[in-house]
């Protein structure tokens, strides 16, 4: 299986962009990634584009050819990937597969979401569509409600507290203060989180990620192409796994685990030839604080039931044993849902390459993991990234 090189990455600022269209946001991320990779736009063989709510946000389906305008030739393969909040991670996975298979040498993977124009009501309704329409949406399920159920099940089973979850929010906000692209760059306290209005018990406002506009992109290339073109790859994708679970929570065997992510991690680790102990840092899908806890356990960084106090103990802080969400995570960096899986790759690549503002927290890191979840982890994509000098790049 040949390696997949990350030639360049780019992203917009995350936050509110009321005056910019989706194509403008994506074009910014795309241009940054292409410029930094030194790959000419007409060399791109394929585009995999993650987007979840284009229909409700901009009245736009069929976004792939729109985002591909100005790239490649008429033979370019442009495909939109929709797996709710895991759309971006699946776009990355499709790009990796295309290069590994030999079908492509240069792939642009990206994602974009515009959400803030929808407001809270419109976003709540749009995000709910990632749940099961018959069993869940019809009964008034919201996304915070679904994660509220997961949090209630987990905290009950493992004697966790809302304060434990608050520490996750505090940590990720602290990380975001030094990430200029992050949406929320102010610190919060445990008390702030505990006193915030409830959204869906036991979760409050500071347990939830914000509503975000933004885009991210990465140029993936084969080792042969990189060699011929004289590129300087920024990182290597050595593992790419995916997993699926029942869409509805009622179809799950255990509300305190996320087997789709467990399966995705197992596949990615096996491909990369690593174990959880090799992971130096991770960018995980903390759409809600409880989601970070579930992610750490699915990735094998903690045993089941033991990640709940990881943030409280400082183990996942920037100076902890395994820093988690140095970017600020979805929680504070922002969560433009269809782009998030790609933006995790962008942040992790810059951290490995030493070009991220928070890279000083992991100066010797060689192995990173990204974890991207769709819905209540009914879909999951996990990627292993390694630093270029740590990996002997091979065809």
């Amino acid at each position: 299986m040949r390696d997949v090189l990350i030639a360049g990455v780019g992203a917009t600022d995350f936050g509110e962009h009321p005056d910019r269209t989706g194509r403008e946001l994506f074009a910014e991320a795309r241009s940054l990634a292409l410029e930094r990779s030194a790959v000419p736009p007409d060399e791109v063989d394929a585009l995999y584009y993650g987007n979840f709510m284009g229909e409700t946000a901009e009245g736009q389906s069929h976004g792939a050819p729109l985002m591909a305008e100005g790239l490649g030739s008429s033979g370019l393969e442009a495909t939109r990937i929709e797996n709710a909040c895991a759309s971006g991670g699946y776009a990355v996975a499709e790009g990796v597969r295309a290069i590994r298979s030999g079908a492509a040498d240069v792939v642009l993977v990206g994602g974009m979401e515009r959400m803030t124009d929808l407001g809270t009501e419109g976003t709540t309704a749009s995000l709910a569509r990632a749940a099961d329409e018959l069993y869940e949406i019809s009964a008034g399920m919201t996304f915070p409600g679904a994660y509220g159920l997961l949090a209630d099940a987990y905290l009950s089973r493992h004697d966790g507290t809302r304060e434990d979850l608050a520490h996750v929010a505090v940590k990720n906000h602290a990380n975001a203060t030094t990430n200029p692209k992050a949406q929320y760059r102010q610190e919060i306290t445990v008390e702030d989180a505990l006193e915030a209005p409830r959204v869906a018990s036991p979760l409050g406002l500071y347990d939830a990620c914000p509503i975000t506009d933004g885009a991210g992109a990465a140029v993936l290339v084969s080792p042969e192409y990189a060699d011929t073109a004289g590129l300087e790859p920024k990182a290597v994708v050595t593992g790419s796994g995916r997993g699926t679970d029942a869409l509805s929570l009622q179809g799950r065997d255990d509300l305190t685990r996320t087997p789709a992510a467990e399966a995705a991690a197992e596949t990615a680790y096996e491909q990369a030839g690593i174990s959880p102990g090799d992971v130096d840092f991770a960018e995980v899908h903390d759409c809600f604080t409880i989601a970070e806890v579930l992610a750490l356990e699915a990735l094998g960084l903690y045993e089941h039931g033991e990640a709940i106090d990881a943030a409280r103990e400082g183990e996942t802080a920037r100076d902890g044993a395994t820093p988690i969400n140095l970017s600020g995570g979805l929680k504070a960096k922002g969560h433009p849902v269809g782009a998030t899986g790609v933006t995790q790759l962008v942040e992790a690549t810059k951290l490995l390459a030493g070009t991220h503002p928070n890279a000083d927290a992991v100066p010797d890191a060689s192995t990173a993991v990204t974890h991207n979840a769709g819905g209540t982890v009914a879909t999951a994509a996990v990627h292993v990234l390694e630093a270029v000098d740590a990996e002997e790049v091979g065809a």
Partner: protein
Amino acid sequence: MSEGDAASRVGYDEWLDALADGDGFYLRNGGDEATVPPAPGRGGLEREPLPARGTVEAVSTIHVPHPEFGDDAPYAIAVASFGPVRLTGQVRGVDPEAADLERGLEVEPTVVSKGENEDHTESRFVGFIPVEANPSER
């Protein structure tokens, strides 16, 4: 057509009708698999009576509602187990912010609709009625 094939074609509305009539059921194959309709393409399923009582496995009181439920907030949504199957529904007949609305609560399944709109058949969904106000006294 075998009984199993017929069971796989039962729709959700038909299942809700049965639940509303007190004839709730679930579908089970010969092994460990159990589900509720719809279950298209899943063969070997047979109807089994839904247990009359279930247990709340997780509950969340939603304060920021789905826009279609804006008049109902706050409302409590729960996943409850009924033998081998789980159902999702709103807990009714109890204060959604009551302290004893928690995991372990024993409930009976029913069919409810949004707000007071009893005839709004397209908006029907599962409801859970607590068996007693305080399950700890059982």
